[in-house]
C-alpha cells in the first residue's frame, strides 16, 4: 500500500485533495482480476437498472402472451445494447465528461437544450412509472403504499447523499446482484428447457402471426432494452468514477457482463410469464402475475417476484434520477459528483431529490393519470431513442475529439443498421399509439 497526497480536479470543482492508494499484487492474473473489480460498476449498473419496473412488466407480459416465442428477440438485443453502450464507454473515458456536456459543447446550445429537456421530461415520467410499480407491489404484499413509497424514496435519497461514489456504487451493485434471484425463480418454475433453447435460438412467429399487438410488444421490448437515459447515465458515471484510458478494456468487459446479465434476467422474466400462462392465467400486470404464480407454487415465489419488482424499480429510479442530476449539473456548470458532499454540490443533489420526491408524490395522489403517463413514456422514449443514438454516432465519428477511440468503419455499419431499425420501429410505435386505428386489428 503506497500513500501520498495530490490535488485532483473533481467534476465541476476546481480542486479536491485525494490520497493515492494502491494494492500490491504479485501475479498478472491477480492484477487483472483486481483491476476489473475496481473498474466494474457503471456498465453493470446501467444494464441491470435497465431491467426496471417497465421492463419487468414488458418481459413478463411477452412471456404470458407469447410463451417462449419472443426469447430470440431479447437475445438479438444483446449485441445491440452492448454496441451502443460500448460507444459511451469510449466517449466517457476519452473526454472525462458526461453526454449532456458533450452535446452542448459539440452541437451548440440549441441542440443541447433540446436533448436536455427531452431527457429530463422522459426521465421524470419514467420515474413516475417506477414508483407506480412500487405502489402496486406493496399493495399486493399487504403494505400500505402511503408508508412504503415515501420510505423507498427516502432510502433512494440516502444512498446518494453519502458524499462517496464508491459507497453508492457498492450499494447499487449489491442491489444488481439481488436481481440474480430471477434465475432461482425461473429455475424453480420448472421451465421447459428444450422449448426455451429453441425459442431463444430459432426465430419463430407466435400462433396468430404478426398482429398489431405483437408488433407493439416487440417495439416495447426494444424500447425497454435500449433507453436514452442509459447513454447519459453511463457516460456521466464513467466520468464521475474517473476511469482511465487503461481501463477501456475492463469497462468494455463490465458493459458486456452487464448486457449478458440483463438479457438472461429478461429471459427469466419471460419464463415467469410463460409459467403463469401455462396455468391458465391472463396477464394484467406483473404484481398480479406474482400472485397468480404464488397460487400454484408457494408464497416464496409470490413474494420473491414482488420484491424483485420493487428492486427493479429502485435500481431504475436511482440510475434515472442520477442521469437527470448529472446532465443538469453538466449543462449548468454546477459541481456534479457523488464524491462531493451535499454542501459542495447542492444543485446536483437538489435535482436528484426533487426528481425522486416529485415522482413518489405524484404516485400517491389519488386518481393520478398513471396510465396516460405510462403510455406517454413508452412513446416519448421510442421517439427520442434514435435521435439520441444519432448524436452518439456523430460524436463517435468525431476524430478531432476521439482520435484513435473514434468509430471504425465496421462500428459505423453496425450502428447505422441499428439506427435505421430503431427509427423504423419508433415510427411504427408512434404511429400506432397516436393513431390506433391506422393498423388493422385482424391477423396479418
Amino acid at each position, binding site marked *: 500500500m503506497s500513500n501520498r497526497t495530490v490535488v485532483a480536479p473533481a467534476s465541476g470543482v476546481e480542486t479536491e485533495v485525494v490520497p493515492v492508494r494502491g*494494492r500490491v499484487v504479485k501475479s498478472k492474473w491477480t492484477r487483472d482480476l483486481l*483491476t476489473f473489480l475496481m473498474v466494474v460498476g457503471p456498465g453493470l449498473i446501467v444494464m441491470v437498472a435497465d431491467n426496471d419496473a417497465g421492463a419487468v412488466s414488458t418481459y413478463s407480459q411477452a412471456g404470458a402472451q407469447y410463451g417462449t416465442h419472443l426469447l430470440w428477440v431479447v437475445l438479438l438485443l444483446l449485441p445491440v445494447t452492448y454496441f451502443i453502450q460500448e460507444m459511451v464507454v469510449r466517449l466517457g473515458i476519452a473526454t472525462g465528461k458526461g453526454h449532456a456536456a458533450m452535446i452542448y459543447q459539440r452541437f451548440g446550445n440549441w441542440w443541447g437544450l433540446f436533448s436536455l429537456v427531452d431527457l429530463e421530461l422522459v426521465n421524470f415520467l419514467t420515474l413516475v412509472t417506477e414508483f407506480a410499480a412500487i405502489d402496486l407491489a406493496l399493495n399486493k404484499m399487504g403494505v400500505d403504499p402511503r408508508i412504503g413509497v415515501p420510505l423507498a424514496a427516502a432510502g433512494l435519497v440516502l444512498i446518494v447523499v453519502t458524499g462517496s461514489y464508491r459507497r453508492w456504487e457498492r450499494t447499487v451493485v449489491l442491489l444488481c446482484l439481488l436481481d440474480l434471484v430471477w434465475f432461482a425463480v425461473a429455475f424453480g418454475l420448472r421451465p421447459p428447457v428444450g422449448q426455451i433453447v429453441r425459442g431463444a435460438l430459432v426465430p419463430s412467429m407466435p400462433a396468430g402471426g404478426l398482429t398489431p399487438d405483437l408488433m407493439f410488444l416487440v417495439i416495447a421490448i426494444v424500447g425497454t432494452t435500449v433507453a436514452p437515459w442509459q447513454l447519459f447515465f453511463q457516460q456521466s458515471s464513467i466520468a464521475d468514477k474517473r476511469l482511465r484510458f487503461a481501463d477501456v478494456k475492463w469497462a468494455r468487459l463490465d458493459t458486456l457482463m452487464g448486457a449478458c446479465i440483463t438479457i438472461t434476467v429478461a429471459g427469466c422474466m419471460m419464463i415467469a410469464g410463460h409459467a403463469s400462462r401455462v396455468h391458465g392465467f391472463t396477464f394484467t400486470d406483473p404484481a398480479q402475475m406474482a400472485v397468480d404464480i404464488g397460487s400454484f407454487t408457494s408464497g416464496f415465489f409470490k413474494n420473491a417476484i414482488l420484491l424483485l419488482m420493487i428492486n427493479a424499480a429502485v435500481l431504475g429510479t436511482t440510475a434515472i434520477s442520477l442521469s437527470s442530476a448529472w446532465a443538469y449539473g453538466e449543462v449548468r456548470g454546477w459541481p456534479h459528483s457523488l464524491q462531493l458532499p451535499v454542501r459542495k454540490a447542492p444543485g446536483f443533489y437538489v435535482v436528484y431529490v426533487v426528481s425522486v420526491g416529485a415522482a413518489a408524490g405524484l404516485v400517491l395522489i389519488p386518481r393520478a393519470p398513471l396510465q396516460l403517463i405510462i403510455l406517454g413514456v413508452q412513446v416519448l422514449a421510442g421517439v427520442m431513442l434514435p435521435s439520441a443514438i444519432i448524436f452518439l454516432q*456523430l460524436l463517435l465519428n468525431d476524430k478531432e475529439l476521439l482520435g484513435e477511440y473514434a468509430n471504425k468503419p465496421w462500428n459505423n455499419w453496425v450502428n447505422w443498421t441499428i439506427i435505421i431499425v430503431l427509427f423504423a420501429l419508433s415510427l411504427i410505435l408512434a404511429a400506432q399509439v397516436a393513431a390506433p386505428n391506422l393498423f388493422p386489428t385482424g391477423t396479418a
Partner: protein
Amino acid sequence: MATMLNPMKTKKPTNCFVVIHPLDDLPEEKVDTEGLGPMAMTTSVRISLLSLRAYLVLMMLLVFYHVMGMAGLFGHRG
C-alpha cells in the same frame, strides 16, 4: 490502472504490480473539449439534423395531442 513497480526503487520482489482504484489515482489528462468548440458539420449532416429536429417536434406534438385526447380534453376519449 496497474503499474509495474521499479524493483530498484521499491525494494520489492520483481513481478510486483500496484493496482490503483480510479478514484485513488492521479487525474489523467483527457481530451480538451472546451478548446474544440462546435463540431464542423457538412451541409448534409446539418440538413439531416434539421429534419430530425422537425421530426422530434412533430412527434412530440402528436403524442401530446393524443394523450390530451385520451384524457378527455377534446370531449371524447381516443
